[in-house]
């Protein structure tokens, strides 16, 4: 009887343990370091074929870092679903690990994440500057965006407009030489134009917005900001013309927006409506003296 009770209790404990935790007995000690590195890389690539953040995807990435704890790519891939889901503590734990293993590859990417997902301009700048010192004489491209452009955005957020213009101009010059102006990220002219408005250089602002507007599928933002500048200059007809174009482009979804986050200085329909109201008032005021005379 006591023996039966003893066996039953072992079975019960086994079942309890099995349901609470996941057990594995896979060991990779017999593999060489190179073999472990290769196997871990294979599991990482396999994980990338699956839906990011899914149970299977995470299990494979977790396995990849068990096989090779120095697999920085797997650590980085583990961090992303947490970032997108708003689980920042877990994101930070994984991305810090990736950076510790390979700062050259991932620090600029964390800068990108800090800039767009947290609006942490100073923190992003720290990462972007650090990544630049690691790769001298080379412009980095985290998330396929020039590090100079990103630094320009950071200084824009910190309201250091002179430094911002310096980096944006460096980006424009560099990309124009490498690829040609037609392949530039035209949103740079939105920010250059906004800085010019804030520095009261309205003619310069118009120049930037018109330059950005030359691109084939230019954003509603260019026309909207042009309308704003014309409003300030009391050129109501030009302002109305640009605002109408802006509204049409906006309704066609042809505007600056982020993916998974709000773009910096993103415009909304309410902004267009507010400017239209302002324009209507200006037009009425202009018409009043004409009627009275």
């Amino acid at each position, binding site marked *: 009887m006591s023996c039966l009770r003893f066996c039953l209790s072992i079975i019960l404990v086994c079942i309890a343990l099995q349901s609470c935790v*996941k057990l594995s007995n896979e060991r990779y000690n017999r593999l060489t370091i190179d073999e472990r590195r290769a196997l871990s890389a294979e599991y990482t690539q396999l994980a990338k074929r699956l839906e990011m953040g899914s149970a299977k995807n995470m299990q494979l990435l*977790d396995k990849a870092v068990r096989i090779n704890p120095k697999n920085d790519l797997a650590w980085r891939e583990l961090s992303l*679903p947490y970032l*997108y889901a708003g*689980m920042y503590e877990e994101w930070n734990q994984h991305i810090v690990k990736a950076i510790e293993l390979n700062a050259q590859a991932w620090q600029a990417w964390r800068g990108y994440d800090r800039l767009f997902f947290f*609006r*942490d301009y100073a923190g992003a700048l720290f990462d972007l500057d650090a990544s630049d010192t690691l790769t001298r004489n080379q412009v980095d491209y985290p998330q396929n965006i020039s590090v100079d452009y990103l630094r320009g955005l950071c200084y824009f957020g910190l309201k250091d407009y002179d430094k911002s213009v310096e980096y944006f101009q460096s980006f424009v010059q560099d990309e124009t030489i490498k690829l040609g102006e037609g392949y530039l990220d035209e949103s740079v002219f939105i920010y250059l134009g906004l800085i010019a408005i804030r520095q009261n250089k309205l003619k310069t602002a118009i120049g930037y917005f018109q330059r950005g507007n030359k691109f084939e599928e230019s954003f509603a933002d260019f026309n909207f900001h042009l309308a704003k500048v014309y409003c300030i200059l009391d050129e109501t007809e030009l302002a109305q013309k640009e605002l109408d174009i802006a509204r049409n482009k906006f309704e066609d979804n042809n505007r600056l927006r982020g993916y*998974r986050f709000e773009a910096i200085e993103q415009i909304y329909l309410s902004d267009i409506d507010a400017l239209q109201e302002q324009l209507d008032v200006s037009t009425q005021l202009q018409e009043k003296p004409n009627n009275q005379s």
Partner: protein
Amino acid sequence: MVPRITIFILLSFFISCDYYIVKDYKEHVGLISKSEESDNPDFNPCFKEKIFPYYYGRQTAEYAKGKDVLSNYFHEHYKNFGNTHESGFITFRFIINCKGEAGNYEIRQVGLDFKKKSFNRETVDYLFSLVKTLQDWNTVEFFGDKYDCFYHLTFKITNGELLEILP
């Protein structure tokens, strides 16, 4: 009570078979299976079997009246109850069902160093009450069909001041 000898035998068994505990990912990262906070008991997802991340689909999920309206609403109503020393991120994660209703809330609080912290309870409860009033959401859509998704609103607070509403 399981005798100590049983535990010893069990541990010896597992060690000899070379078992170790690994992380068990049972569902998609970000899925909220149960709400930890007081919630509307009538809220239900349309399809419990699949809840998408908010950024899926041609149009990502968002507040129906626009982020600008959302932002103005919180900046207008936010109160710090005199706590001017707190900084960090308060995140409300929730599910938006196919009808555009929100529920199943989860609250997470981290400091600017992304380590777990606790903000003043009054501030958190007040923000939560504001978030719960928002019930008109655009959920993820595929070819005209609407599905459930999980979403989050993060409030970036610096020295008690509400700076940003993310993402």
